[in-house]
């Protein structure tokens, strides 16, 4: 399996290359000059030229690209134009924040959604099922930033139970750190579990129709075992794929949630980088995210056969 992953990673190199070219071009085409932004409204031609030269922004694009990729290949993502920080550690630190939220949220969402979805399917068309489907459709229809705002208003301001600003990492102070994670995690859990419940429900329905479920029942297997042992592994396949996509999207796309809760995550780093035209930061983030996305998908593909042995053959 390890070898398989390595091979898939190798196969995704052309994609990464394309991604890097795209990112690079995209950024250069955007109006806005990092040097100008750095110096503000009083920049003079000389000072601008000096900053550009310092950042290597005065070189022709192909040369800039080659320098950048050359450095990246050596594991050096460069330094931020704005803050001069080294980018790779910066990305990793910010990613840690995002990851801790997303990972916790996805795990909780999956733990809730999978049994709920299966029970809804098992009790198809019952009142319970209709209720669960209605709730999950409702949750699905609330954008995360709106949900976050409402939570913030209620738990942070109205009840004052949870801190509304700042962030303390878990490593720093575990208990306080947890407090800062609660609302973002709840937001993501609520929003994502809607999708997951529906997915799990429909794939379970699909599976419950099949003969091997009847066969297991005919053998005298109890309903709980039928669901857990016979239906689950088969119904989980599509949900797993969805989880992968979701994870990929969340790891990069929770800029809005990070904005609402002012979390120093990867999404905000990217958005701020874009605002500040901090080329190295944006390039680094996007490349990192693309690689992450590819990696997540590969890993998901790799663990898929655990749930569906047929996949291995294709």
């Amino acid at each position: 399996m390890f070898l398989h992953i390595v091979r898939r990673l190798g196969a995704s190199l052309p994609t990464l290359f394309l991604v890097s070219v795209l990112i690079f071009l995209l950024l250069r085409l955007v109006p806005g000059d990092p040097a100008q932004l750095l110096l503000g409204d009083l920049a003079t031609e000389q000072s601008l030229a000096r900053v550009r030269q310092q950042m290597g922004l005065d070189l022709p694009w192909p040369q800039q690209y080659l320098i950048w990729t050359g450095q990246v290949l050596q594991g050096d993502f460069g330094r931020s134009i704005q803050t001069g920080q080294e980018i790779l550690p910066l990305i990793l630190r910010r990613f840690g924040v995002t990851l801790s939220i997303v990972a916790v949220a996805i795990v909780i969402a999956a733990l809730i959604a999978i049994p709920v979805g299966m029970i809804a399917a098992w009790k198809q068309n019952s009142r319970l099922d209709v209720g669960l489907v209605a709730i999950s459709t409702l949750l699905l229809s609330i954008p995360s930033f709106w949900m976050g705002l409402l939570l913030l208003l209620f738990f942070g301001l109205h009840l004052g139970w949870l801190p509304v600003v700042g962030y303390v990492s878990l490593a720093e102070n575990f208990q306080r750190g947890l407090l800062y994670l609660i609302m973002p995690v709840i937001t993501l859990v609520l929003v994502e579990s809607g999708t997951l419940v529906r997915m799990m429900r429909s794939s379970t329905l699909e599976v419950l129709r099949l003969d091997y479920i009847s066969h297991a029942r005919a053998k005298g297997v109890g309903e709980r075992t039928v669901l857990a042992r016979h239906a689950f592994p088969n119904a989980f396949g599509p949900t797993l794929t969805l989880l992968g996509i979701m994870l990929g999207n969340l790891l990069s796309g929770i800029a809005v949630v990070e904005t609402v809760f002012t979390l120093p995550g990867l999404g905000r780093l990217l958005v701020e980088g874009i605002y500040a035209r901090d080329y190295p930061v944006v390039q680094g983030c996007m490349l990192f995210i693309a690689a992450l996305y590819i990696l997540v998908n590969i890993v998901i593909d790799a663990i898929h056969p655990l749930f569906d042995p047929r996949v291995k053959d294709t």
Partner: protein
Amino acid sequence: QAASNETVTVAMNADMRSTQPGVNRDGNTDGVMMHVVEGLVGYREDGSVGPMLAERYDISEDGLTYTFHLREGVRFHNGETMTAEYVVWSWDRWMDPETEWRCLADFDGTVGLEVTGVSAPDEHTVTMTLAEPSALLLATMARPDCGVVAVVHPDSVDEEGNWIEPIGTGPYKFGRWDHNRSIELNRFHDYVSRDEPMDGYVGGKQPTIETVRILIVPDPATVVAGLQSGDIDAAMLGSADSRSLRGVPGVELAVASNGQRNGLLIQTQDPLLSDPRIRRAMALAIDTEQAALGSSEGLGTPSNSNVPVASAWYGEMQAQGYEYDPEAARALLAEAGYNGEPIEIIANRRPVVPSYNVAIIAQAMLQEVGINAQVNTMEWATQLDRYSRGRYQMMSFTYSPRFDPALMFEQITGDKRQEPRKVWDNSQAIALIGELSRTEDDASRQALVDELHTMMIEDTPLLFFFPGVSVAAYREHVEGFTPWFGENPRMWAVRTIL
């Protein structure tokens, strides 16, 4: 808030850029650094220059030699005593092109002012010589964006000359910097204060708070929430955000005008807008008072002047602006043959400036007299790009504070062919500014400032409506957190009571 004066948490909307004053900086960086480092001189509350590390200074008859007499007993954060030797060392470091000091060009003759030599005749005296007399030396030295030409200890850099961390003489020592999250400043217990009362960045400073925690919170709504919940003790806010804090128990507000100027830039080279009658019509169409109050939650002070109201240079003359006269505006438009051609006003929605509000309100008023104004919001980076290329018709823009009137006018005036970002291209004005920067006598300077103001109002290359508004919002146990001409908080004046 366990005990009085223990810790105060201040919110700041973005992280600072570096710890090297005047090099890689922005307004926030300056704000933090002003707690850590000091220069020979600094700005007072009203934008005039006062001594800081210098006890006093003399200027020679010919205006070419400045002699600074240093205060005695001032210590660096590492315990060493500040002497003339360190002033010269610091100066040399800033003037070294390697350092990439932002203000290098302002002192090496590139722009005009040229310092030819700095020396230390004795331990407590520093002399500076100029190539030509200039009124701008002290004003430039006092600029926060130049890092007030900070006097720092050589241990601030390593053997190769790379910057490590500022070891200055300010009331606070630089503590911990957790990028993008928080900055900690620790009280400098051995700080020796001047005797005068606090005045702007100079005067007496009595740090009392042990730890100042500066929290980076980009989102103003969150700052508001944090102030309400008590997670944040104090913050400087824009006028719009302060509104929701009015009447909130436990939170107090204080308002002051600052050195920013908000207004609409007009591209005088635009085929349509090159007609002074149309520009004039716009000026007459806008009710300055309404525009100022409406876009600042009623906190701004209406003024068409380029000199902010809180400045020492703001006088009766500067209070003269445009009369609101929509009828006259319509007549002028008709005269100019304006025919409903669309005019684009570029604005941005950065939370720190009222750019968008000004544009929206101006749009409404311009439309009232038949000017087809259309607001187009852009991301700041894009707007700034347009600004620096001069590619716009109109633009809602906020100028960052300058303390000296010559610098204020220099911000807006210049030759567009050479510097497209300049808005007011008037050779007569350029000459006047040159004269202003050479003149030292206050009365003559005021006369020049007045003349420039009148010319600007006449020419209408841009429309100022009001200077920026700083709102200090703080929990009620915080004292001395006051807004002022310079926008940044001054924590050395703050104490807490429980």
